[in-house]
């Protein structure tokens, strides 16, 4: 459970990074007061895009409108030509780019999950949109609409959520950011590397708290499952413990057996958990590829194993002590 949930959190962040990098920009300008991650309402005056274009070393700039659709889903409004130029072009698996009508383009994952094809209709923002094309994923977002249309639909005419800036030479990134900040003093401006580095669990307090809850629940479940299992097992094995004691096994020997069994169970459980995380990854990628992405979080393997072992050892503690202290004669009489 832990590996799957942490993997989903990590996977979605990594995928976000990959899609953001897929834009091909060097710098991102976000609205003043916005956080580095999160859905940004369109509050940047669109004229800033033109201003950014006039700055030294700026080869290209494009504004993008982001509209929330509920949950973590968003639709992006883009100028398709500008985005194509900046990202190096879209690959269409089906159909074609949108035109200015009620058309949308979606990526392959969204199409697969929602079983959509070019020509299908999807409802977003209380309107029906014709899917004009399905593009290969990895660029900005899963669903894109014409920017102007999305601005009008969301009553944000003349405003964008973020501005992506591409430079003539990426080695000037720091210099250009410093220059932009002189004018846009309140605007968070990041290089794409800086932005990518911020897409981590530690940068999302909610995700960090969520993982904390998951870890706590895992310890609790581990404790309860092992406690109940071992308590029951020890009751069922009272006679066996009596036999061991009749053979001369001391408390330490009985404790040792139960602890070794618990550690073995924890190791098997951890291995199965790792295996299951591959299964859930496959299920997510097969059935809900657009809604979630799960990463295999290798760095969490030992943490999950430690949590499993910790929970299991906590769980076995009382039953093991109880077993070790059992009276040999009473245990032998147990049927």
């Amino acid at each position, binding site marked *: 459970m832990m590996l799957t949930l942490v993997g989903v959190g990590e996977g979605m962040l990594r995928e976000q990074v990959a899609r953001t990098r897929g834009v091909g920009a060097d710098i991102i300008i976000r609205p003043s007061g916005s956080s580095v991650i999160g859905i940004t309402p369109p509050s940047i005056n669109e004229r800033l895009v033109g201003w950014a274009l006039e700055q030294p070393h700026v080869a290209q700039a494009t504004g993008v409108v982001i509209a929330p659709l509920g949950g973590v889903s968003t639709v992006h409004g883009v100028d398709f030509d500008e985005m194509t130029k900046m990202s190096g072009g879209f690959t269409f698996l089906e159909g074609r780019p949108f035109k200015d009508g009620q058309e949308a383009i979606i990526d392959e994952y969204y199409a697969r999950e929602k079983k959509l094809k070019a020509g299908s209709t999807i409802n977003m923002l209380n309107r029906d949109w014709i899917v004009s094309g399905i593009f290969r994923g990895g660029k900005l977002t899963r669903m894109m609409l014409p920017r102007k249309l999305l601005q009008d639909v969301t009553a944000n005419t003349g405003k964008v959520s973020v501005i992506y800036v591409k430079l003539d030479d990426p080695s000037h990134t720091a210099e250009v950011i410093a220059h932009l900040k002189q004018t846009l003093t309140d605007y968070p401006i990041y290089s794409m590397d800086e932005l990518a580095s911020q897409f981590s669990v530690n940068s999302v307090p909610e995700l960090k708290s969520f993982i904390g809850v998951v870890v706590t629940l895992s310890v609790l479940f581990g404790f309860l499952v092992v406690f109940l299992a071992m308590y029951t097992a020890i009751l069922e094995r009272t*006679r*066996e413990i*009596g*036999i*061991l*004691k*009749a*053979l*001369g*096994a*001391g408390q330490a*020997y009985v404790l040792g057996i139960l602890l070794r069994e618990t550690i073995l169970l924890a190791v098997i459980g951890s291995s199965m958990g790792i295996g299951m995380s591959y299964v859930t990854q496959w299920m997510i990628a097969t059935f809900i590829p657009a809604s979630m992405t799960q990463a295999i979080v290798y760095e969490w393997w030992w943490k999950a194993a430690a949590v499993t072992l910790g929970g299991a050892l906590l769980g076995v503690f009382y039953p093991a002590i109880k077993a070790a202290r059992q009276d*040999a*004669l009473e245990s*032998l009489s147990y049927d």
Partner: protein
Amino acid sequence: MTEPIIGIRDLRKTFRSGDVDVHALRGVDLAVERGEFLAVVGPSGSGKSTLFHILGGLTPPTAGTVFIDGQDLMKMSDGDRTKLRMKSVGFVFQKYNLLPTLTVKDNIEIARDIAGMKGPLDEQFVEVLEVLGITNKMGRKPRQLSGGEQQRVAIARSIVNRPAILLADEPTGNLDTENSTAVLNLLRDLNKRLGQTILMITHNPEAAAFADRIVHMRDGQLHTA
């Protein structure tokens, strides 16, 4: 004359059952010589199982003196009695008491493991396994064995650590006549072959007849036949 391997004088055991004191042993005197095969015969409730449990260090005596292989049971703590069971006493129970999840080999090995014995089985014990007829059943689980075979495994386990005494509590109680005779013959054979001291508790006079000496127990006291 050598000191007896089991020396009991005025042994008493009183249980508390609810508000009533039950006097299970009421002044037992007994001496068992090293290498002797002794049968304690008595009806249910006569106190023979209590004597078995005390001699095996499974429960402490209330009063009297009990020496086993030179060790004074009255002065023993729980831990000392655990060591006694590990080193000096082997048990054969009526219900075999093999560990059901372990193979025959592992049932024997675990007794060695508890006693801290490492390495391969010695040649003499391997011969005993052949006499017991279980060498070809070492990989089997107890449920795959007949009652007689299980009891033979239990006998092997009880002597693998070369205990000073072997305590057998109704070892033929769950066996048919043929298997009973086989097990009793094996006990007698082990007694002669290894010089193993055996104290067997039974209510069956025919089984007791296999022993060198028979004592009778009634109302918590021993009576020589």
